[in-house]
Each structure stands twice: as structure tokens, then as C-alpha cells.
């Protein structure tokens, strides 16, 4: 049943590295992560890799398999021909720490810049009432397992380190949309995405949507609707004027509406 497969795995650290060749046993039903684990157990005990659930639920095991961003635990070996070399490299957009492990702190920093949910002041816990149809839009985005593959493929930052500062990436632009569509969120998020998180830099190529393992329609359901709303408001002279007048300092102080 088992056979030997030719694997190439990138090994190295922040100072550089190379693709190492391995011949490794593959059995029926196995996924790429199983093979990486077999390499650890038999040939390369210090091979660095992240994983947790092995079931596509935690988003830890992102890597590039033959150049495509994939969850290693959900990539079946049966999708490759037996004589096709399988090349596993770390996610490209984030700096390598070692082997397949990258420094994803960018994502956590961006997460922290998105203003949080603002609960309605007049409702006590237990008094929230929302209809299923109304929560479903945000629920779609909350399926996100934070594998960061959408951020990895987005060309705005993939080869442009300099954009990382201003651009939250699809994952966190989607977070703004999620909060905006939350039926009970009290914050005004109309301009947040555009002005502080770089929505304007997205030119809706949909690469993010294509790689999302949760099949979230990031572009169609989160990014485009936000762009449309921004445009509506921008070109509406009244809204435009109002915005100019009411505009607060860049660090828009929301303390009056929070907590």
C-alpha cells in the first residue's frame, strides 16, 4: 500500500536556507502534514512546523505546497501523481523563523488596531435579541480560522513590505466588515476601513477569496460592500461635507462611545 514519494522541504532560517530532498513513505489517505511528521520522526527530528488540530480547524499549518498556499493537514497526498515532486515551502509574505515556521506577528498587530465590538449600553447580558438572518452575514466572516493565507497571497503586501504599515490585509478588513454588519454593534465604522486600514489599496483581484480554506467570500461579501458604502458616502456632497466638518483627529477618540 505504501510507496516512497519525493519531497522537497525548505530548510533554513532568517539568514537563508535551501530545499532539501527526501524520499519518504506515503500511505493511503495521508495528507502532507502526515508526511512532514514522518520526516520528523524518521529523518529530520528538528524540522520546524506548526500544527494543532490536524482537521482544518485551527489554521496553524499554512505553508506553500508546490507554490500554492495550503493547509498541510487538508492537502491529501492523493491529489499528487506518485512521481510528482512535492515541494513544501514556508508562507512567503511573512519572515521565516525556521523551516516552515514564519513570524506571523504582523497579523496580531493588525488585529489589535481594529476597534473592538461596542456593545449597546442599554442591554444587559441575556437581553440581546437578533434574528438568524441578521447574524448570518457576520457569522460567515467569523468562520475564519486565522490561517493568514489570504494575507499571504494579497499582492498589496506579498511583495511590498512597505505597504504593511498602512494595510490591514483582507483578514482584518473583513473584521471591520464583520463588526459593521453585527446587528448590535454601536460604533460608526463607515470610514474606518478606508482611512485607517487601507481598504483603498485593495483592487479586488479576489486572490484572497480563492485561497480561503473556509470558503469565505472575502472580496464579494466583505470588501466590495464596504467599498460601495464608502463610495456612496464620499460622493454624496452632503455626507462629504458632514464628514469634513465632523472629522476628528487621526487617532479618532472613541472613548465617549465605548465601555
Amino acid at each position, binding site marked *: 500500500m505504501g510507496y516512497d514519494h519525493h519531497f522537497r522541504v525548505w530548510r533554513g532560517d532568517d539568514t537563508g536556507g535551501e530545499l532539501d530532498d527526501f524520499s519518504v513513505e506515503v500511505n493511503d489517505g495521508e495528507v502532507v502534514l502526515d508526511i512532514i511528521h514522518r520526516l520528523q520522526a524518521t529523518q529530520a*527530528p*528538528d524540522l520546524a512546523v506548526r500544527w494543532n488540530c490536524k482537521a482544518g480547524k485551527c489554521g496553524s499549518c499554512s505553508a506553500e505546497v508546490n507554490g500554492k498556499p495550503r493547509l498541510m493537514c487538508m492537502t491529501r497526498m492523493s491529489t499528487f501523481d506518485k512521481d510528482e515532486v512535492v515541494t513544501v515551502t514556508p508562507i512567503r509574505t511573512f519572515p521565516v523563523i525556521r523551516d516552515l515556521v514564519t513570524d506571523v506577528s504582523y497579523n496580531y498587530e493588525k488585529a*489589535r488596531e481594529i476597534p473592538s465590538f461596542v456593545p449597546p449600553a442599554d442591554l444587559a447580558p441575556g437581553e440581546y435579541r437578533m434574528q438568524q438572518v441578521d447574524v448570518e452575514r457576520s457569522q460567515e466572516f467569523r468562520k475564519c480560522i486565522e490561517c493568514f493565507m489570504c494575507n499571504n497571497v494579497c499582492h498589496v503586501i506579498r511583495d511590498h513590505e512597505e505597504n504593511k504599515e498602512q494595510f490591514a490585509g483582507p483578514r482584518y478588513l473583513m473584521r471591520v466588515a464583520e463588526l459593521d454588519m453585527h446587528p448590535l454593534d454601536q460604533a460608526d465604522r463607515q470610514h474606518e476601513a478606508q482611512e485607517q486600514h487601507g481598504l483603498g489599496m485593495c483592487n479586488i483581484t479576489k486572490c484572497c477569496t480563492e485561497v480561503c480554506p473556509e470558503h469565505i467570500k472575502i472580496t464579494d461579501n466583505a470588501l466590495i460592500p464596504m467599498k460601495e458604502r464608502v463610495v456612496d458616502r464620499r460622493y454624496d456632497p452632503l455626507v462629504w461635507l458632514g464628514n469634513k466638518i465632523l472629522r476628528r483627529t487621526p487617532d479618532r477618540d472613541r472613548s465617549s462611545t465605548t465601555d
Partner: protein
Amino acid sequence: MTDGNGTTTETYERHDFDVIVIGAGGAGLRAAIAAREEGMRTAIVCKSLFGKAHTVMAEGGAAAALGNVNPKDNWKVHFRDTMRGGKFLNNYRMAELHAKEAPQRVWELETYGALFDRTKDGRISQRNFGGHEYPRLAHVGDRTGLELIRTLQQKIVSLQQEDFRETGDYESRIKVFAECTVTELIKDGDRISGAFGYWRENGRFLVFSAPAVILATGGIGKSFKVTSNSWEYTGDGHALALRAGASLINMEFVQFHPTGMVSPPSVKGILVTESVRGDGGVLKNSEGERFMFNYIPDVFKAQYATSAEEADKWYTDPDNNRRPPELLPRDEVARAINSEVKAGRGSPSGGVFLDIASRLPAAEIQRKLPSMYHQFKELADVDITAEPMEVGPTCHYVMGGVEVDADTQQSRVPGLYAAGEVSGGMHGSNRLGGNSLSDLLVFGMRAGVAAAQYVGSLGGTRPAVSEETVAAATEAALAPFAIQGGENAFTIQQDLQQSMNDLVGIIRKAEEVEQALLTLQDLRGRVAKVSVAGGRVFNPGWHLALDLRNMLLVSECVAKAALERTESRGGHTRDDHPAMESEWRKINLVLSLTSTGRLEDETVGLERQPVPTMPTELLQLFEWGELSKYMTPEELEGLPGATKMAPLPESEGA
């Protein structure tokens, strides 16, 4: 055995906090929120990235008697179900607090931004689960754990944003140390004074100084070969507690979830959520028989249907029909599957069939169980809307854990707390599905508040971290690098997993458990000589070499307690003692270290301790007839007003 360069040259980072929370799952995050809200400077330390803890994998839901779907539900019914599920071995006070406080803790999540599935009138929807009398699990499809952990994570972020507005520093009050493993707890005299660990990313050491440590490290399932648990579940918290002088209880009780995937081999053990059965799925053997009707134990006869007709009517008319036996507590279902397979009525890959395809329309299955649909499609080429799944038992959860005070979660060691799966007592001999997520919230919060009060009570006198303890911890952590030509940690781990699975698994016998104890002794010798290839930067071989010490210690606790308890109850089944014995219900097995030092010198001691007795007002929530199945005649006689406790009519939902 020192590092080649001598350990004295080793430098370390030092961090001072009020409270250290070890673990960033549901329990740890809820504890950290509570501690921070009490004004504590709080650190959260976790082995994986933030947001990836085990809690993220929970599927079915969080149990809380909100009464949204069936208004008859209330804390008393939930309490009863929990005690029954645990076969009355539970710490009654924890079960009581849990049942009473779970609704508040779940509602609170909505104020943090959680979006649960809704009922028609816009409340939180609740689903049926094994052992729960009414639909009780607040859920989001079959990804409830993801919602829970993300919500708590986002609440932490919102608190950090608050702190940023006030102090200009996001991390002024809560700081997350992700991918950082704690290897030792540090004490000053008999009190906790901190913790020692390393960054996985670069192998450098850190010392935390803090008067209070909350363990929220989850479970031990990685010691078994077939498990739904991840690499993180090496029993670190259990072992850290033991080494710090705390005690563990109920370690013989390990939950084997009845439905794990069985095929292909590489996915063996991955969980198939109980929601499949809660939403109508049934179990069948190779003869097509719905076999669970043959396995309803005496103690549950009153609550479970005896025919398929009655069972099927229950989904739409639960008031006038009894529940389907597929929804018996997990230990019962797991044993039943095991028996069917043994009797030669298993599926081709050695499990049984779980059929939802013939029970619900395809679209509904996809809507209610999207991740199960996805999981089977992608990993097993099975379309669950068209064909049955093959399932079998998988090691899932440990009921046993750190012995704690029910109200404060404090262990025997001042300053050391434990919450979530790493603590023991709440679930008795068997946990009901959904009772873990709620447990994390209820006791996570309690631990955070209690730790804060403890720190507050210390005033200016804080326990100190001594240089000797740091030096010893450094030496222990580096030891594997100094050994040349020893074994690879992965090989030893596989041997350990195989032994525990075969010898201390779902069905146990004295000879086999004794054999396991011998094997563990042997493995100790091998672990002490393990060697590590490569350097200290993100080196999984080294990480595992250190985790193995914990796995061994905790496995020994499981085996020792399993040998001692000569009865079968909940998550502990003895082939040679198949009956549940009332005398044993009164006894908790408590484990602690009788000698410490190097791995080879650690000795686990075992004591018997009485299970706390339920006060009358809680006993009165049960029918006399039911209690008589669990308790000894003397206990029953001794109950005040025993003879006057009239049985409740069935319709009151007993």
C-alpha cells in the same frame, strides 16, 4: 550533566506580573479577563500561537440552562444531568456552581461580540446533546469552540485597547507570551512565586515572577495513540502541579468519545461531533441494526426509549417520548460500540456506522453540520449526506485533574490555581458533552477573581524567585542536548502512546495495567537518556523531549489510579470488575508526589479520600429510587428525612 558551556553563562528574560495564566484556551482567557478586570497585571503564556488552543476545535456547543428552547430547563435540571453523567462522583459544589453560573457566563459572551445561532424569537439557540435532558447547548453550527476562543481573544484585545488609550501601551496590563512553554513552577517556601519557561521560537529562557499562577493547560490525550487531541495535550499542567506539591484526583477517568473517525488510518481519532447524533444521526452495526437499544443500563432505563418508534418521536415531541439511546452519556455509547466491534458486527475499518444521510435532507445536513461535511469529504472521500460514516472510540478528555477548592479553584499550594480541563472534580467519572466549554467560562472566571483576591491579600510582601531554582530549571531544560547517541523523542512517544492505548485504554484489566506500569518504568529510563539533534531555535525534537517527562508522569497517575479502582464507572471500565459499586462512589483517588528530584527519582503516591457529601437540599432534587441505584444502604439510611423524599412525577422532568 550540565550544558557544555556550563549553565551559569545562560541568560534569561525576567518578567514581573501579579498573575500568570498558563494556557490560552477558554479557561485561561476567561481567567485572564477576570484577573485584569480585578486590576491585576496579567500574563498569558501558551505553547501555540494565540487563538489556536484546543478550545478552538470544540464543535457542538456550550451547555447552559438558558431555557431558550425548552422553558422547563433550569439550573436544577442541568445539575441533575451533570451528576448523573458523572455517576454521582462529581464534586457536587462544582457541579452546582457550574449549573447556576453557566447561563450568565454564556450571555456575557454576547456582550463581547459573540454571535450564536438564534431561535425564532431572536434568542440564543440551543441543541440536544447526550445526557442533557433538554436542548441546552448554545452553539454556532458545529464550530462553537472557534466562536468561543475568538470572542475571548477579541475581548482581551478590547481590554488592551482600553489600556492603550489610558497608558499608551497595549501591553501595560495584559501581555500574551505566545509559543512559550512553561517547564517549571517556582516556589518560595510553600507558596508559588513564579514560573520558568522557554520561547519555542528561539529556545531562550524566561522567568516569570508572580505570586499567583493559574494553570489552564488542558488535557493529557496525547499519551494515547488514538485521540482527538493535539500535540499540546501532554499533561503539562497536571505534571507542573504535581511537582509543585499539589494533588490530582480522578485520574483513572479518561473519556473515550464514542465517535472518532476510523478511516483512512491517518485520520484515525479525529473527532466526529456528538451533534450528529443530537441532530438525529443513529448508530448501526454491520447487520444494519440500531444496536444502542440493547445497551441501555439500568440506571438510565427510565429516561431512554426502548423502540425506534418512540425514539424517533422524541425529536418532535420530547415531552411525551423518551430519548433515543444514541444520546446516552459518552461512556455508555463508547462501550457499546466497542462491544459490537468485538462481537464481529463492526464496519469494514473496525468501527460502526453513523448514519445521518437517511435521517435528514442533504441541505439540512450541510447547514447544521458544515464542518463535518467538509471534514469527511476532504479527508475520507465520504459524502455524509449520501452515505454513513464509519466511527469508533477515540481518547478525548480527561475528567481527572488538579484537586481544587470548588469556589476558588485553588490547589493545595497557596497561589496555585487550576481551571478548565486541567482541574478535576467537576465532571466526576464522566463529562457530558458541552459541559466543558461552560466549565471553562465558569471556573476560569472564578479562578481569575480568586487569584486576584489572593494577590491583593498579600500586601507588599511578595514571594521571591531564587537564583538556584532558576539555575536548576535551566539545567533540566538543557539536559537533552548534553546527551550523545540517545534515542529520538518521537520513537519513545510512539511507544508510550501504544502502551497506554493497548493497556490502559477504554477497557482495562489488572494484569494489563500492571504491565503498563512496568513499561512506564522502563520508558522513564529511556526518556532520561533521550538526545536531541539540532539547535534551540524552534526545535520540535527538543520540545517533545521535555514534554515526554510530563506525559510519563501523568500516564503513571492514570495507570496507578486505574489499577486501584476495582469497579467500573464512567470513563473507567474494568473487565475484571464490571460492576459499579456503591462503596467506591464514596471514594476519590488522590495522587501526589512522595519524592521529587530527577525524573528517575519521582515517586507517585496514591491515597483514598472521601467524596464530599451532597447537602440535603441538593439530594432532594433526585428521586429516591435513582439515588438508591448509586448509594450504599447506610448512606441512604443516614439521609435526613430519607423516607419522606417522595419521587417526583415523571412529567416534572426528573
